[in-house]
């Protein structure tokens, strides 16, 4: 029946009965639209793939090319009907969810942190550039950037000796003093065959010129120091491609690839050359979590608080929500009004609410201290900060448990409660022995889901306390209210050393934890479904 969609049949509609005409017209228009959309999208994607390839982003380019292929195959042939529905979702999910997850997994196996961010090739270039030493007297010259015979060159002015020369990476050409024109500082700005760079050219020249070693005398060359000055230097570290080593030309010592993303001195492994590169270290980021006390101790502290925070949040929000649900479980006067007021904290955008609470906890001017006549420094004391975090989360979360508890209370069969009452149970006994156990059974998957959500409640911590307070001593970055996810964020994007490898490893551990909690609760809810 789907033959209607194949282009060959499009122009011979006679074999289809009149009843199908509406479908046919829709089919025809749909087909046209489909072809237009698919070709337009493909055109854009091919264009992007090409420019990605030109920028040497091969993985992205390949992904885009495969996308085009998948789109064409799916929508222009009849290869698979489910794929017609799935392809857009799959592509988005792959590009922005699965791709990043795989990338995170990869990063967790690398020594990938501040100082080891670039690739090995780039690192070698950088080490070479940095492995120079100024001549003992610290000679420096005023220079002008330009070209000489089409090559990158500098016009050097030795102002004290009134000598001038043009230097490229291969040659040095002295220029007579009467062949140059000087500016008001005595710096030569023109010379025969030398074309000075315009301001516009200067902006783009930074990268290429700073890498060139301009000829001077013997082993010494001129290295640029900004655009206006050059320093007489010599290369100290030389790269030996054959043995993949760096050699110190002055004292002859050798630096070898230490397998962890740095060149280290053969005799003293702790002496490494900067910068390093991102190198595979396999499971070291994971083992470091257990073996390195500087990583382990803050992590354990943060983990304990994370669990405590999530547990306390679930307990307090559930208790308050349930109390409300019980109180409003009867059609008392004003119940609708109460209800619409009580859901307000849940209806407010949480980002706004958290920021508002942040202001209320302000020590000097905040409403909380004004209300109670206290002067507590809420966010400077670890315990007060923790209380504040729990309190704000209680405000944000209790309406959720109020709503679902009151729904579930109605689901408990009234015969059960009546029977208990007839048997002489008092209301408290009924609640403890019947209502609560039943409720917990119904709500346990949601309680677990809420635990998992709060386990990763990044916004609350980040916006309210920023994880603080923390002691500034010994460079510790974990604060008293930091939960695992905010701590991981700090490790990856913090102000000090950014360790993407370690952060990725911790991320994956959190993922395993949360996924097992969620799968457990899901399984449990499935069980409940089949019995209920």
């Amino acid at each position, binding site marked *: *029946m*789907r033959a209607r969609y194949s282009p060959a049949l499009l122009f011979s509609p006679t074999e289809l009965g009149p009843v*199908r005409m509406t*479908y046919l017209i*829709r089919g025809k228009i749909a087909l046209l639209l489909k072809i237009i959309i698919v070709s337009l999208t493909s055109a854009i994607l091919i264009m992007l793939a090409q*420019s*990605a390839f030109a920028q040497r*982003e091969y993985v992205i380019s390949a992904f885009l090319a495969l996308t085009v292929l998948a789109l064409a195959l799916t929508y222009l042939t009849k290869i698979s*009907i489910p794929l017609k*529905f799935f392809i*857009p*979702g799959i592509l*988005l*999910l792959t*590009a*922005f*969810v699965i791709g*990043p*997850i795989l*990338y995170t997994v990869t*990063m967790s196996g690398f020594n990938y942190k501040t100082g080891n961010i670039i690739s090995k090739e780039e690192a070698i270039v950088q080490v070479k550039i940095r492995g120079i030493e100024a001549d003992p007297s610290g000679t420096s010259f005023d220079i002008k950037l330009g070209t000489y015979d089409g090559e990158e060159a500098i016009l050097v002015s030795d102002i004290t000796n009134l000598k001038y020369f043009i230097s490229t990476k291969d040659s040095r050409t002295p220029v007579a003093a009467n062949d140059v024109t000087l500016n008001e500082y005595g710096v030569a700005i023109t010379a025969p065959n030398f074309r000075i760079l315009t301001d516009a050219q200067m902006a783009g020249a930074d990268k290429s010129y700073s890498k060139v070693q301009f000829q001077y005398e013997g082993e010494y060359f001129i290295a640029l120091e900004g655009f206006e000055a050059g320093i007489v230097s010599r290369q100290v570290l030389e790269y030996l491609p054959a043995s993949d080593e760096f050699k110190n030309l002055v004292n002859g010592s050798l630096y070898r690839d230490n397998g962890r993303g740095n060149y280290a001195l053969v005799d003293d492994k702790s002496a490494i050359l900067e910068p390093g590169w991102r190198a595979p270290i396999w499971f070291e980021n994971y083992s470091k979590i257990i073996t390195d006390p500087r990583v382990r101790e803050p992590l354990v502290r943060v983990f304990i608080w994370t669990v405590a925070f999530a547990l306390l949040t679930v307990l307090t929000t559930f208790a*308050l929500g349930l*109390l*409300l649900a019980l*109180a409003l479980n*009867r059609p*008392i*006067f004003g119940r609708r009004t*109460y209800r*619409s*007021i009580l859901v307000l*904290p849940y209806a*407010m*955008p*949480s*980002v*706004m609410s958290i*920021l*508002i609470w*942040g*202001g*209320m906890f302000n020590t000097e*001017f905040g*409403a909380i201290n004004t209300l109670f006549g206290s002067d507590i420094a809420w966010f400077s004391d670890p315990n007060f900060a923790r209380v504040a975090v729990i309190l704000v989360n209680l*405000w944000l979360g209790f309406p*959720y448990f109020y*709503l*679902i508890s009151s729904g*579930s209370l109605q689901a408990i069969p009234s015969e059960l409660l009546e029977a208990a009452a007839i048997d002489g149970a008092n209301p408290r006994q009924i609640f403890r022995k019947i209502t609560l156990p039943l409720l917990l059974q119904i709500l346990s*998957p*949601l309680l677990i889901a809420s635990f998992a*959500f709060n386990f*990763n409640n990044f916004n609350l911590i*980040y916006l309210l306390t920023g994880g603080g307070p923390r002691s500034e001593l010994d460079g510790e970055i974990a604060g008293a209210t930091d939960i695992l996810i905010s701590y991981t*964020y700090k490790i990856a*994007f913090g102000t000090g050393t950014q360790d*993407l490898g370690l952060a990725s490893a911790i*991320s994956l551990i*959190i*993922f395993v934890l949360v996924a097992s909690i969620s799968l457990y609760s899901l399984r449990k809810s499935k069980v409940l479904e089949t019995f209920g």
Partner: protein
Amino acid sequence: MKKWLIHDSWRHIIAISICLFALFPLYLVVISSFASSGSLQLTSFIPREISFKNYELLFNSPTIPYLAWVKNSLIIAGAVAVLSVIIGSASAFAFSRLKFKGRKQGIQLLLLVQMFPAILAISAVYVIMERVYSFAPSIGLGTRAGLLLVYLGGAMGVNIWLLKGFVDSIPAELDEAAKIDGASEVQTFWLIFVPLAAPVLAVVSLLSFIGTFNEFILARLFLVDMESRTVAVGLQQFIGGQYSQNWGPFAAGSILASIPIVIIFLSLQKYIVSGLTAGSVKG
């Protein structure tokens, strides 16, 4: 009559005290937004004057492009709401109604992927979009279009999952009837399923609107320009630490930004609650 009153009084006491707790911060923001001083310090909990100074500042001050922020939030959240539901509902329909090999594994994979906390993949998303920027500056890091793409990808997992639950609850008789009448799967989707599920799709898209509106950390990382920020990022950066000085305009701005969300939420309450019990938690 009197006995009844005593009997129910504890209910009222609890309800009223928790209502006060719920309203306290909201009341404070409202009165500070109408205070002329604009500072965090309250002179009294009962307002003595009503001034629109903070609101005027919001719309006229060149240092707070509030309207641009609101516009960005509405455009981004609106686009995510519409597109993610169109794309997500197609996948949900296929998961729910079509039989194919690997269906179960697909659902499981989706579930697993969805459990990966988005914030943890942020560094990878950042690096990827930085690279995209190098060859396509209009959809890379720092652009609203790039942020939209990332949101769409992130919304897929949750939305497909949520929509699948809804699709499962729509009786299959109608599309089976359509199938017998000779409709293809694609036609069944567009002509039978979409009209039938329109209210549900609207609800899910409004939910993703709220979710996107509330998203903070990706937007913070992506949108650096003052003019291209969303309301959440704009207001956070505006108040960032400077509570005492910028409180008044912030209060006014957060009230205006919250009103539409609160209205959407209250009008959808019924559906949201049933969605909640289906196992999703509002972010």
